[in-house]
Each structure stands twice: as C-alpha cells, then as structure tokens.
C-alpha cells in the first residue's frame, strides 16, 4: 500500500532526495511543506541573481508543472507547527493535521544574527533567501550598505551589490578575509581584488552597535568609534542548524538533528537531510555533502542499503574576477610542509599543505583551473612523492600516465575557467559546441575563448575532444623535439614560473629524456633562458647554431661570410676603404651588396675571422648580426635629407632604431625598415616591423614577411613623435621576445596572439609599455655590445686548430 511521506522544507537537500525518489518511482504519496512561499530553487545561485548575472526564474530547479507531473502535493508558504510522533501526524500552521508513515526533515539552517544593540532595526537583514536577495537588489545605486562578515556569503553579497553600484563596506572581525578557507596570502589577494571592485574592506574590525533613526538602520558603529553610515546592513556571520521543531518533537538533537549513516534520526520513521543534521559530530554548510545525504535518504526510504560518508570539501567563491579555491586543512604544523607558488604579476597564488606525502590542504587564488585535480589528490589521499617537484604546477607538468590531460579536463566542472583573458568557462565552451561550434576557429568566433593571448588553446582543444569524442582530433600539440613531450609554451611557462635559470635546471624540472638535449631544443632553451633571465643566465655558445656561435654565416664549403653593420644603410668612404682593404688582405673571393643595404664579404676562412673583424673594428665597424635570430637590419630611404617627397627624417630614425635594438636576441630574425613617405622605398610594409613617415608623424606596422611567405604588415599605431616610435618598437620587440615561440617570426606570433592583443600590451596600456621598455633595456645592458670585438680580443685562439700535426711523419 502506498505510504505517506511528508517533507518539511523544500530546500536543496530535500529537492535532490525527491528527484531520487521520483526517478525510482518510489511508492510514496508525497506532501511537501515549505515555509518560503515557493518550491525548490538553487539557493547557491542567489549570488549570481544578486549580481544581475541570472534571474530568479533561471535558478528554479522544480516548477509547478514538475510537482504536478510527479504528483507531489505542495504546501508552499506553510510551516509545519508541530509533530506528534506517537500519533505519527504533523500539524500545519493553519491547524491541518496530516498523518505520515515517513517524515523527512530538511529545515536547513537559520542565519545567525549577532545580538548587537539595534539588530532588530528595520533594514538589518541576513542573506539566506530570495526575500533577502530582493532587499539588496532594491537598494539601487548611490546607496550605502554595510556587510558584517568577510566569509563566503558576506563577500558574495558585497560583490553583488557593488556590481549594482551600491557603496559597500565589508566589516570583518578577523585579520583577513575568509579566514576559514584561506590563508593570509590568499586573503590579501582577495582583498585587493575586492578593493579594486570599489568595495571598502575593514578587517580586524569589531562591531559595537547598530545605530538607527525612526526605527530604521542608519549606521554601524565600530568599537574604535568609527561610524559607517548605511541604508541596509547585511549580517552574514554564520548559520545555525534549524532544529527547533525537531527539538520540540523530542528527537535527539545536538548542534543539529542527530542522524545515523542512513540519515535516520532517533525515531526510525523520521529522516533528516541537509544543513539541519548532525552526523558523526559534524554539521554541514555546503551542498556537496547534502546531495550525498539526499541520495542516501532516498535509498533508505526505498529500503535499499546505502551509507553516508563524509568527504573532503572544497570551496569556491562565486565572485566574478576573484578566482579562488580552497580545500582541506591548511593550518601549519610540525609534520606539515608547504609548497608555495606565487606569480605576483598575474596575481596568482597557490599553496599546498603536505603531510606524509599526501596533500591535506590547498589554497589557490588567481588561477584555479587545476583545482579539481588537486582536490582529487586530497580526496583520494594520493601519494605525491614522485611528482613533488612539479606538483604545484598542476597536472600539465606530471609525466607518465598520471597526466592524461583529457581525463583532467573531463573532470573539470562546468564553471572551471578555461580562457583567462575572456573569462570563458568550460560550460560556455560546451554550450557553444552543442550549438554547432565544432572546431577551434568556431569556438573562438562564438565564445572568444583562446582568441586573446592564446595560451589556453590547448585546453579549449581538449574540451572539444572530451565533448566531441572521436569526432574531434586534437591537432597534436607538437613537443619541442624528441627530448621532451612538452611544448614550447609549456616549457616556457615552467622557465618563468619555476624560475629555471640554467639549462640543467630545465632538463631536470621538465624531465628531459636525453642527457643534454639536442640541436633542436638547446637553441630554443638557450633563447628562452636569456630572454627571461637576461641578468642571471649566461649565454651558452655550445647551444647555438654555428652562425651565432662564430658570429658569421657558414657557407657550403665551411668558410664564412662577414657582414659589418652599416647603420640604416649609411656608410662612408673610410668604411668602404676599410672593407676593400680587408677584402684584399684576406683574399675574400666575393664581395656582394646584400638585400639588406650593406656589404657582404663571402668566403672568409674560419681561422681568419678574428683578424678580419679586428681590422673592421679598427675602422669603427661592428658585427651586422647577419647570422642572428636577433636584430638584422633597419633599412631606410633617404627621407627629408634629400628626397622631395620625404616627410620625416627616415634615415635618422632608422639609425636611431638600429642603434637601440642591435645586439638583441629575438625568437627569430627581426628586420625593420623606415620609409620617408607612403611611396615606401625602404619596403617597410613587408618587414617584421615597419615605419612609414607621414606629415603628422609615424605609422608603425608589424607582421610583414617577404621570405617563404609574403605578407603585408598591419598597422598597430600612429604616433606623432620619434620618441614614441622608439618606445613602442622596443615594447613590441620585448613582448615578442617574452612571448613568442622560438623560430616564429612576428607575423606567426601575431597569428597566434592577435594584433589587438599586441596593441593592447604595447600601445594602449602605457604602464605595460613602460615596463616592457624597461625590461628591454635591462636585457640590452648586456647584449647591446659587439660580439666581434669580444671574440677578436678574448677568444681569437679558439678559432685556430688546437694542434697542427701536418708536419708529423706519416710512416
């Protein structure tokens, strides 16, 4: 015979239990009471509703149709007033008495209100339900609000109201925000982010009294005498399980309603789930365990075996722009160790607390993409001894089978952020895929994910692969070479984030499979290391291709070519004479004018290099770096000095640029040109960076090519002064050095990150431009020097054979 099930409270826990019961066609007549005048909704989404990101309708989990279709009798807006366990009946507020066979408590909790003087004034509210949310939403811009409590709830309330233009002050009694979930460092970052949103944050602040006027709140008075005026005061300082009714009914109650592993209370016919229960000494305030309880309770009602087990919990804050994650226990202890990673520039903080090779706690701020993976390690108590060195960098840096990136991506929740630049979450990408975007280009176009800096491209592709299965083949993320499975991007991230400053450090940290790399990876690593650590890292000639090691181009017969710099293509009779003399003296077979506006001496013997350089140095010339992945030439035209059309001193600017940039190493060669007018005689619009002078100033354009690919540059900026041209070009060069993959010319790099991104970094964001220029100059303090002079004076011997046995008798 069908039994009567009465449920007290239509909350998140009972809502889930109902779903389980109805899915299994359980044989119950269900009557659902709720004190709130509505049915089940997703309470945790009240914060996005408050922030204006969602509407109430979107967060309703079960609507009237659902209850009707499933035969649930709803008594919303009605409280249960009493229970008669002996008679097995409940009494509703209006006096109705209903019999039950089984009763389920899901009364949730009550927000705790600090009994400060004035706490009962009008305008003092908690943050628990839709009514509270509506009060906050009604406040409107230009009002003031004080939130007491710097925990999860208080901060979501504060951020939501701030997003609506309300002037919000958070008052927190502890020294840092969310002290139960975060350590001080993460709390600091969070505070900074909230302050950036315009929220005033007062920590270590004690509330003394709520001041009122005409029965309505007027201000909060702190015990240091500060008065914080407000139109609304939200108390979000904690919750207490709602146990009054259970207590009156004589059930066993401690902090919450006592339940066993089957969610049964001290009365065999009464179950309880959710925040109102106490299980094994613990009470609950997050939904994950409540969902587990709901599942167990449903099973118990259906007489199926099931057992509730407490698990590790993790927390995320639902405030846009504050990505934080916290799980486990992160108190310090003698037998505990910390692994901490900070990237102040990106505002990233990660801390893992380890005890006996198991992670017991994790706090992450700024970059929480890997949080699920860490949470898994905590929950499963995984032994991390083998991956300890790279653990903090997350799953991408773990070798072997543990690191199936697809599994990690599959495990990510829908709200895991994939694209940091555009704030695109996994769920949005999945939705875009469902709507027909089935390749990277389509995802970029519809969601903007990976359309900015591009570092998340791999992740987006993995989401595509996980979602589409066999229909999507990930374009193999090519590793640098056979020595490693890691890509250029990954290795570069490691070099920066783990502060790897030597080649052996990289090999070690990234698990190189060979003892010392190969001719493919070593030049790339050498470049990354010197670009990222110009002061600390010493260039390794043995990791350079012979041209860069000997500062000359090797020829097919093993001889070399020598190209002295001619700044901006300008030379003098004396320089020409010195070149002619050198050509004579060293019997140079070919003298050629290059396509780069200078002269090439081809066919010089390796042994003669230091001597010919010495002669050219003496005549005031330096290496033209015709061999380098670095600045090559700055071609110019004659400009205003001579040309009737010239608008600016193109030759002069070209020389200035060459003198600033020369010697700098870049991912690939870097060629510039400056033309004096749009007739463009210096061919500036097919260079890596080109400048066209116009009457009003200078047009800077980038990403040209005239080699294996031919491509016209794209305009990045137009500026009035030479000084700005030089700064912007230095900034572009530095950004290219810091971000591009080794052997990508600017146009290839631009194809990945986009012209807009480069413009933002180097033109629009003046602070960033200045920082790039400063870093460029730091690096140039080492590299703006003539390698020829150095080799001619200090390394000449190394160009000679080490022994000459040609005289030894060959018996």
């Amino acid at each position, binding site marked *: 015979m069908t039994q009567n099930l009465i449920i007290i409270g239509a909350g998140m826990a009972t809502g889930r239990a109902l779903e389980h019961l109805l899915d299994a066609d359980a044989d119950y007549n269900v009557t659902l009471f709720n004190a709130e005048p509505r049915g089940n909704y997703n309470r945790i989404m009240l914060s996005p509703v408050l922030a204006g990101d969602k509407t109430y309708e979107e967060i309703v989990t079960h609507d009237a149709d659902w209850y009707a279709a499933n035969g649930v009798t709803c008594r919303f807006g009605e409280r249960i007033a009493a229970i008669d366990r002996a008679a097995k009946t409940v009494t509703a507020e209006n006096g109705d008495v209903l019999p039950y066979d089984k009763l389920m408590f899901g009364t949730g909790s009550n927000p705790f209100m600090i009994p400060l003087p004035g706490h009962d004034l009008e305008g003092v509210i908690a943050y628990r339900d839709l009514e509270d949310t509506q009060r906050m939403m009604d406040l409107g811009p230009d009002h003031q609000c004080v939130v007491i409590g710097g925990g999860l709830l208080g901060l979501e309330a504060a951020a939501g109201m701030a997003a609506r233009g309300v002037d919000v002050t958070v008052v927190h009694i502890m020294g840092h925000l969310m002290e139960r979930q975060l350590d001080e460092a993460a709390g600091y970052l969070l505070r900074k982010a909230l302050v950036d949103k315009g929220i005033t944050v007062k920590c270590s602040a004690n509330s003394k009294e709520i001041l009122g006027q005409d029965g309505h709140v007027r201000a909060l008075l702190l015990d240091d005498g500060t008065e914080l005026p407000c139109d609304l005061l939200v108390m979000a300082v904690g919750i207490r399980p709602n146990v009054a009714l259970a207590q009156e009914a004589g059930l066993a109650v401690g902090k919450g309603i006592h339940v066993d592993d089957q969610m049964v209370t001290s009365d065999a016919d009464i179950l309880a789930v959710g925040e109102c229960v106490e299980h094994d000494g613990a009470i609950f305030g997050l939904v994950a365990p409540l969902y587990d309880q709901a599942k167990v309770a449903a099973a118990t009602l259906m007489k199926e075996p099931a057992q509730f087990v407490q698990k590790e919990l993790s927390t995320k804050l639902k405030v846009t722009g504050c990505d934080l994650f916290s799980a486990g226990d992160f108190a310090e202890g003698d037998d505990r160790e910390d692994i901490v990673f900070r990237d102040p520039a990106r505002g990233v903080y990660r801390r893992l607390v380890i005890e006996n090779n198991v992670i017991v706690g994790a706090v992450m701020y700024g970059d929480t993409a890997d949080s699920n993976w860490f949470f898994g390690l905590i929950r499963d108590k995984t032994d991390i001894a083998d991956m300890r060195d790279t653990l903090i960098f997350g799953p991408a840096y773990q070798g072997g089978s543990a690191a199936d990136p697809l599994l990690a991506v599959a495990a990510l929740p829908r709200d895991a952020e994939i694209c940091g630049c555009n704030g695109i979450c996994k769920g949005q990408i999945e939705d875009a895929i469902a709507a027909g975007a089935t390749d990277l280009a389509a995802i970029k176009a519809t969601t903007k994910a990976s359309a900015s800096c591009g570092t998340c491209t791999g992740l987006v592709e993995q989401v595509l692969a996980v979602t589409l299965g066999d229909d999507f083949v990930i374009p193999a993320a090519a590793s640098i070479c056979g020595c490693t499975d890691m890509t250029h991007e990954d290795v570069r991230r490691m070099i920066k984030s783990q502060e790897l400053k030597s080649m052996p450090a990289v090999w070690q940290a990234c698990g190189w499979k060979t003892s010392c790399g190969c001719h493919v990876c070593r030049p790339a690593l050498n470049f990354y290391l010197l670009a990222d650590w110009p002061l600390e890292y010493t260039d390794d000639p043995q990791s350079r291709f*012979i041209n860069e090691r000997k500062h000359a181009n090797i020829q097919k017969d093993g001889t070399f070519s020598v190209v002295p710099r001619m700044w901006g293509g300008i030379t003098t009779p004396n320089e020409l004479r010195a070149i002619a003399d050198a050509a004579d003296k060293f019997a140079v077979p070919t003298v050629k004018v290059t396509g780069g506006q200078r002269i090439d001496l081809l066919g010089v013997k390796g042994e003669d290099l230091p001597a010919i350089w010495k002669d050219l140095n003496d005549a005031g010339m330096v290496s033209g770096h015709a061999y380098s992945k670095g600045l090559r030439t700055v071609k110019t035209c004659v400009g205003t000095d001579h040309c009737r059309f010239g608008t600016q001193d193109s030759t002069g600017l070209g020389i200035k640029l060459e003198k600033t940039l020369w010697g700098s190493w870049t991912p690939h060669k870097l060629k510039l040109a400056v033309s004096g007018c749009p007739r463009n005689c210096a061919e500036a619009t097919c260079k890596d960076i080109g400048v066209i002078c116009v009457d009003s100033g200078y047009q800077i354009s980038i990403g040209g090519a005239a080699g294996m690919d031919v491509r016209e540059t794209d305009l990045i900026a137009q500026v009035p002064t030479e000084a700005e041209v030089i700064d912007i070009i230095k900034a572009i060069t530095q950004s290219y050095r810091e971000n591009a993959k080794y052997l990508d010319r600017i146009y290839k790099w631009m194809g990945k990150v986009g012209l807009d991104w480069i413009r933002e970094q180097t033109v629009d964001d003046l602070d960033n431009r200045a920082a790039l220029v400063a870093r460029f100059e730091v690096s140039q303090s080492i590299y703006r020097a003539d390698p020829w002079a150095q080799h001619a004076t200090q390394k000449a011997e190394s160009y000679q054979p080490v022994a000459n046995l040609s005289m030894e008798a060959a018996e």
Partner: protein
Amino acid sequence: MSDWIDITALDAIPQRGARLVKTAHGCVAVFRTGADEVYALDNACPHKNGPLAEGIVHGAAVTCPLHNWVISLETGEVQGNDEGQVATYPAKVEDGRVLLDASFLTRRAVA
C-alpha cells in the same frame, strides 16, 4: 702498440664542443661531450663534407651544421634515416690532457 700523442689540455675544448687538429691529410675534429668524454673523427660529413666540428654536440652525437645529419661520436655512424660513416680514431683523456693515438696519422695517410 699504441703511441699516444699529447694534443692539448681538455679545457681547451669546450664541453659539448670540438676543436680541430690539422694533419697532412685534412682536419680531424676532437669532440668533448657534456660528460667529458673525448672522440676524434674526420671533420667531414658524409653528406656534403659539412665541417662537423662546427656542429651542435648532444649526448655522444653531433649534428652537422649544414643540413642537420646526426652522427654518432662513438661509431662515426650516421643516425636516423640517413646513411653514412665517418672515420673515427682512438682518443682519451689522461690527467686533464687529450691524447690521440699516433697510428691514426698512418691510417689517414693510407685511407
């Protein structure tokens, strides 16, 4: 019978690098690996005579600077899909000095 000739100090050759020894029959490249082993090979790639001493040394191999053939320093054999063989000569390090077996000069004369 071997007759070791003292060529140079080990330190005269950079780690993962090479120096040349001139002989009447062309140059021999003496390599020093990252692990301080030394090897002597003809300084001519079997492909198009690329000067191997100018290549990038990795493990016990060198990559030719002209077209990236990889040659084993131990055997002189070309690695991978390419084919070819470079002559190798006995070499060793003793008390920080690099020694070549003088008989290699004879062999080169004959070759």
